[in-house]
């Protein structure tokens, strides 16, 4: 009888937010077309490590399982990416799984991306349309622009670009590339444009645009291929103009 093929995972685990991380190795039975998450599910079914000791199931985060929610990001063989889209057949073994180091660990591979949502609040990455009466339909968006904006709208707040950025770390307050690109997306929208300067103000606050040092790793690693460095430079330009208006004053409403 053919020997049962196995997949080896070396996982950086951490029992609680403040406890010390440690490595644990697991061998799980191989199946065709497995992804990293199905491997983690095998461990959950039978949490026995490679030494044959009974362990605890490894905790991880997930939602959509089709690379659109961003919840399952982790560092796989040194590369931050979505574990649902990481196929075991395409990975070198043993497969090393670590939580993304830029974010606080909740448990094992589960991290807390709250800082990204706070950053989206800082740059007001939404379109305010609530009012006390019906404002009617907004201006229309040219189809060409809609297609362009769609690319920026693919961001799933997965955190991979923050993980790769040398300026996002515990010594700096830089919000990272993703929220900057989101501010650009909403500033390009015909209705969102009406509050453009408020988003620029957010980008000019502490931890905003100037935290970027142009290492440009973000654009290389973004799983959605978002032109992050172009967005950052575009917002740099807009913020330059906004700061001149703020300083010298401007006759144009802003």
């Amino acid at each position: 009888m053919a020997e049962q093929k196995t997949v080896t995972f070396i996982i950086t685990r951490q029992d609680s937010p403040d406890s010390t991380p440690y490595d644990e190795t697991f061998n799980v039975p191989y199946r065709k077309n497995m992804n990293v998450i199905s491997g983690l599910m095998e461990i959950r079914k039978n949490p026995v490590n490679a030494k044959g000791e009974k362990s605890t199931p490894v905790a991880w985060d997930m939602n959509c399982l089709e690379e659109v929610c961003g919840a399952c990001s982790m560092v796989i063989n040194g590369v931050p990416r979505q574990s649902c889209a990481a196929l075991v057949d395409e990975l070198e073994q043993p497969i090393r799984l670590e939580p993304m180091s830029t974010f606080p660990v909740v448990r094992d591979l589960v991290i807390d991306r709250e800082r990204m949502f706070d950053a989206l609040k800082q740059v007001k990455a939404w379109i305010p349309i609530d009012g006390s009466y019906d404002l009617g339909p907004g201006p229309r968006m040219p189809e060409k622009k809609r297609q362009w904006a769609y690319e920026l709208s693919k961001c799933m707040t997965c955190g991979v670009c923050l993980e790769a950025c040398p300026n996002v770390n515990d010594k700096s307050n830089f919000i990272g590339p993703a929220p900057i690109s989101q501010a650009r997306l909403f500033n390009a929208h015909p209705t969102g444009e009406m509050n453009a300067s408020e988003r620029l103000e957010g980008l000019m606050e502490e931890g905003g645009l100037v935290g970027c040092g142009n290492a440009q790793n973000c654009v290389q690693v973004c799983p959605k291929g978002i032109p992050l460095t172009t967005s950052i430079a575009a917002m740099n330009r807009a913020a330059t103009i906004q700061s001149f208006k703020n300083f010298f004053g401007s006759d144009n409403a802003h």
Partner: protein
Amino acid sequence: MAENREFFYRRLHSLLGVVPIGLFLINHLVVNHFAVYGEESFNKAASFMHNLPFVLALEIFVIYLPLLFHAILGVYIVFTAKNNVKRYNFVRNWLFFLQRFTGIVTLVFIAWHVFETRVQVALGADLDYGLMEGILTSPVMFWFYVIGVLSAVFHFANGLWGFLVSWGFAQSPRSQKIVTYATLLIFLVVSYIGIRTLIAFAYGV
């Protein structure tokens, strides 16, 4: 401005790197290039610069204060980065790292260089060809100066790229690429001007 202090200081840091510090660097290396045309040309040029009207005020406002601001904030910026070129082995990431590395090397070099030249002149040494010849005929100092000049010029050229991106001049990937090549050319040309001068002092050719 009051509420966007960080933004203001970082943009000022960026601007000062080009105007006046970058312009001074180019001027400094070009004027020193007179050494290549002989001792007399250099002495004439150096004494012209040294005897400019208001020279102390010019030095303070065009060089010392901007450089001090840029260097102090620069060191802070260096230590807030967590370099990761091993894991993310991309050209731009390397240049990001080198921008910080050459910043520190340049700082050490400038401190040494100012002490050895400007401070000595203030203490009574003669500012002439012989001063630099005396320093640069030592092979150790020659190579120290080569490293210092290359690192300052790299820092300026790559910094110019950063300046153009930080202020939003170069936005699209293509324009950023063109600026990369343009600043590479600036690095090569200005490096040649600087190194050629060092050779003139060290070997008299």
